[in-house]
């Protein structure tokens, strides 16, 4: 039963990892940008929720109404004002800029909030649980997983069923020809980053309710997000969800074997997948 429980908990945790990964996957898909600051932006969103919840006396989930639009707007501005200027040609400059951004965010948070771990206070949501078939699962992990499925489904729909999604895919395919369709690449990239950081905001708030966070915590979230994307296969959003679940289950089962083995087990499964299927388990079908 412990093992079944570990798999269930790991699956639900995978939802959170999928949310870490979705924004990363989105911007890589649209503009081939690897955002090293992604994890720090998740943590930044958690801090933003902390201040919003404290300042306005809101529940952290209600703070999403502020944090999501704020992160989206910041993403658009960041892309147009900074990252776009480094794009085109070499992949190294944007990589270095996001690395620099990562350092700036970490140090900014350190100055603003100190290194003390913080947590978002969500009242009964933190402890509420449901029991069935001899298993007990927390409401928060369930909610997180449901939101992950909803977000991935919505992104998938947006990508393949809407004009915005067409613009993203066309720009991803051929940037110069996309311009000929009247698409301003700088704006399209801005929208992609806005969307990515909107998802990141949700991920950050759910993370902050689930566990304590501190300014240095971005790196681990970036790695988990990366691993989920790579395990699932680049360019496949449902694959990213699967990748998150595989990573979550690997960690939970690893933790069941030995508590110290939890994180390592995740990395080992990631490496195993990479060794056997370098393009991930569900790579995008090329047309």
């Amino acid at each position: 039963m412990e093992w079944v429980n570990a798999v269930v908990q790991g699956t639900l945790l995978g939802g959170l990892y999928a949310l870490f990964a979705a924004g990363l996957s989105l911007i890589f898909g649209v503009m081939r940008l690897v955002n090293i600051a992604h994890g720090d932006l998740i943590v930044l969103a958690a801090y933003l929720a902390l201040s919003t919840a404290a300042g306005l006396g809101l529940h952290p989930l209600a703070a999403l109404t502020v944090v999501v639009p704020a992160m989206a707007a910041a993403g658009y501005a960041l892309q147009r004002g900074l990252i776009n200027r480094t794009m085109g040609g070499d992949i190294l400059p944007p990589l270095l800029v996001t690395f620099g951004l990562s350092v700036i965010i970490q140090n900014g948070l350190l100055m603003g909030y100190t290194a003390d771990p913080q947590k978002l206070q969500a009242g009964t949501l933190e402890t509420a649980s449901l029991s069935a078939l001899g298993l007990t699962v927390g409401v928060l992990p369930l909610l997180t997983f449901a939101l992950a499925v909803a977000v991935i489904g919505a992104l998938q729909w947006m990508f393949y069923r809407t004009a915005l999604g067409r613009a993203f895919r066309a720009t991803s395919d051929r940037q110069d020809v996309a311009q000929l369709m009247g698409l301003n690449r700088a704006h399209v990239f801005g929208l992609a980053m806005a969307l990515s950081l909107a998802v990141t905001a949700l991920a950050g708030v759910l993370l902050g309710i689930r566990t304590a966070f501190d300014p240095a915590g971005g790196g681990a979230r970036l790695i988990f997000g990366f691993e989920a994307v790579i395990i699932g296969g680049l360019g496949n959003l449902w694959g990213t969800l699967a990748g998150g679940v595989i990573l979550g289950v690997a960690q939970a089962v690893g933790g069941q074997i030995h508590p110290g083995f939890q994180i390592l087990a995740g990395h080992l499964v990631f490496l195993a997948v990479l060794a056997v299927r370098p393009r991930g388990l569900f790579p995008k079908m090329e047309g």
Partner: protein
Amino acid sequence: MPEALLAIDGLDVFHGDFQALYGIAAEVAPGEMVAVIGANGAGKTTLLRAVAGLLGRRAAAIRWKGRPIGGMRADRVAALGIALVPEGRLLFPSLSIEENLLIGGRMGRRGPWDLAAVYRLFPILRERRGFAPAQLSGGQQQMAAIGRALMANPELILIDEISLGLAPVAIRQLYEVLPGIVGEGMAAVIVEQDTTRALAVTRRFYCLQEGRVALAGASGSVTREAIGRAYFGV
């Protein structure tokens, strides 16, 4: 000649250090069909890409209805009503045929062209609308690329290498529909390897040679020898 829709004057274009166009001068009147011919590497593609806003810097070198547009961003040029059918067609591989057409029409410019009109022009595209571009023949891909440009309801369509690499039957089909779509509200510039065909369907032509206009004039009255000289510089 009526007032020029597009007027190019003193256009120099560089690929890095390499100068591909030298002081090009050319005009296109509303509703007119113009051919651009020339040997491989003469600069035909460079010229069309410069007009479309993908290359070039100096604003005054290209005028649209009198307004300088040289060096303007390609998406802004497109919004003015200039559509390019690029060499090699360059459909979006991850979009279906219908999505390729829809994205061509995303600017919402008014005019006769919409999905239904393009499907009437090229019925095969309706049949293949859910397919990926790679699943279509070269001729069908060219139809989709032309349809994608028409969807923008442009006032000027630039078609680079309309028949290159296509089967003879596909070429004939394209040339059959061409006169019907140009005229009234839309002018066309076509780049073509087959000069005889190009001269047959157009009113005027420009022949480029090593980045310069070597010869220009009325398509109907030019001699083969003159074209030959302008082509190869012999």
